[in-house]
């Protein structure tokens, strides 16, 4: 539906805001551009909307190149972060704006506006001004104003950012339902990973202008391809080291605090890697488990309703987060051995030279 092909964006002589971005967005899907502020996600959205021009590369919508189309010519509509409702117009006039410009007949406009306002549960609010609406209501008007034009793609730039938590959760569900009902392609920008996981069909994680990974929420969470993705989405324990031994799928890794194991393909001995293990996948035992030699000291255990959170510390001071369902047997505080099912750990290629130096120094010290 939307093809972003080799798009670069830079301002003057500064660094790239978006670098070599290739992304296909499918028809009817809810795709989220996720990343921290300044990662290029909003710039990407603005390039699709036509507010910014790519420095190079091109964008297609429905197979048609839109690089030379002005924003007003494009069949996409935007829901702005600040809502951008016209303050001097009523809700009705705001929503009708796009249709009035298209010179649609008056009674037809009235019909459409009424219908769409009912859909976003704002029937009867036609005569109000934006200043007389709550944040959530403004948001709904902004969505209605965009949707009434029946865009091929709806672009949403952190649309829920200004709402309080409870309202945000509610709007997340409503937006998702709306998207399913209308089966319009949504491109959604957010920095909130939980929001991205909840709503998206697919998530595109961006970091410093580079697309790190695209995948379903489960893929992104369970199989992060980079350290950034692993740490940005959800909580994780990241162990950095190098490959000691490869035996088919089984990979043995040396880290500062000992040996750990994971499974993965395409790794070579001595290669720098990181291993990401989610807290809920972590296990511990009072005796060493084959393939693992990492010891930790239990620092703290906290019950959070159904979950028991354990905080342990490695000899080098790194903290390890472990989550178990409450009620499961817990070894007492003190020294524990960490391990996990090899399939539960995600092995990631690493290119952190600084860390390599650090590890090899430690190893050399041991050998002397």
């Amino acid at each position, binding site marked *: 539906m939307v093809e972003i092909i080799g798009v670069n964006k830079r301002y003057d002589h500064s660094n790239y805001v978006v670098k070599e971005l290739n992304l296909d967005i499918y028809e009817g899907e809810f795709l989220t551009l996720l990343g921290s502020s300044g990662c290029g996600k909003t710039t990407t959205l603005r390039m699709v*909307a*036509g*507010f910014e021009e790519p420095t190079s590369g091109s964008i297609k919508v429905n197979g048609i190149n839109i690089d030379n189309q*002005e*924003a*007003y010519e494009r069949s*996409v*509509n*935007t829901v*702005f972060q*600040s809502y*951008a*409702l*016209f*303050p*001097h117009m009523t809700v009705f006039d705001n929503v009708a*704006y*796009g249709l009035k*410009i*298209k010179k649609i007949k008056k009674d037809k406009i009235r019909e459409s506006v009424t219908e769409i306002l009912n859909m976003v549960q704002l029937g009867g609010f036609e005569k109000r001004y934006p200043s007389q609406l709550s944040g959530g209501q403004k948001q709904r008007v902004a969505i209605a*104003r*965009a949707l009434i*034009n029946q865009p091929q793609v709806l672009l949403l730039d952190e649309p829920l950012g200004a709402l309080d938590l409870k309202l945000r959760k509610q709007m997340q569900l409503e937006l998702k339902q709306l998207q399913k009902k209308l089966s319009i392609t949504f491109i959604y920008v957010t920095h909130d990973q939980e929001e991205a996981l909840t709503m998206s069909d697919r998530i595109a994680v961006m970091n410093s202008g580079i697309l790190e990974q695209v995948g379903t929420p489960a893929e992104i969470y369970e199989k992060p391809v980079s350290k950034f993705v692993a740490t940005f989405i959800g909580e994780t324990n990241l162990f950095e080291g190098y490959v000691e031994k490869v035996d088919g799928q089984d990979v043995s890794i040396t880290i500062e605090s000992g040996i750990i194991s994971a499974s993965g393909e395409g790794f070579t001995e001595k290669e720098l890697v990181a291993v990401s293990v989610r807290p809920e996948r972590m296990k511990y035992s009072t005796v060493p488990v084959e393939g693992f030699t990492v010891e930790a000291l239990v620092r703290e255990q906290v019950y959070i309703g159904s979950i028991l959170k354990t905080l342990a510390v490695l000899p080098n001071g790194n903290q390890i987060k472990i989550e178990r369902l409450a009620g499961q047997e817990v070894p007492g505080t003190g020294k524990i051995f960490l391990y996990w099912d090899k399939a539960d750990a995600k092995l990631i290629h690493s290119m952190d030279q600084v860390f390599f130096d650090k590890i090899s120094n430690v190893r050399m010290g041991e050998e002397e």
Partner: protein
Amino acid sequence: MVGPVTLWLAFFVAVPLLYVFVMSFCSLDQNYNVVFAFTLDNYARLADVNYIAIYMQSLLIAFLTTVICLGLAYPFAFLIARTVSKYKGVLYMLVVIPFWTNSLIRIYGWRTFLGANGWLNNALIALGIISEPLDLLFSKATTILGMVYCLIPYMVLPLYTAIEKLDKNLLEASADLGAKKLTTYRKIVIPLTASGIFSGSIMVFIPCLGLFFVSDILGGGNSDIIGNLIERQFQSGNNWPLGSALSIILIAVTLLLVKLYQKCGGDMESLGV
């Protein structure tokens, strides 16, 4: 409570105004001395046909000045407000520096520039474009030119404030919904900067009724405004009561305009009130 502000206002505003008000009901004796004998004569004389012609002329000049100021200032204010580079400050100073310079000096500057022996005529003759100096001074047009020149900062500054406040997202939203630039200006930009247009207009129109030295220096007596009438009564005419009556009328018109402005939803703060 009689605070220092109240005293200050009483001394510098209320007392002089009261003085002018009382004066407007006084009469003159044979030696043109003001005597405190109540009369409405001064007001009756204001309906003189010659005076009415000058009021009309004054209103026309003020109106044209306002329209021209608006036409020139709007794009310029837009430019300043939308400039993000270091030139923003320079553009802003271009407006503010003349604003700080004595307007009498600046108006004399125009006279030197436009006079029969002025720079403009000399330059045009030197370039061979004309052979005889053009008669550029002493017309309604030159008076309006001077007025526009003097008062344009009062138009630019409120417009600039209004445009600066305009959320750039609204322009993008308008384009996003299919509006071309011109439509966006008509439907979004102009209505949302109306407060600036409004207060700028009033801040140009009102002083334009009183800046007598502009029509004196550049109009050469051909384009008198209410301000000239008042000035003449206090100076050469030596008829203070009549001058006072004219002043009271001018103040009344000003208050009426401000009231009208307020009634139409104008923001008093942007007038500096």
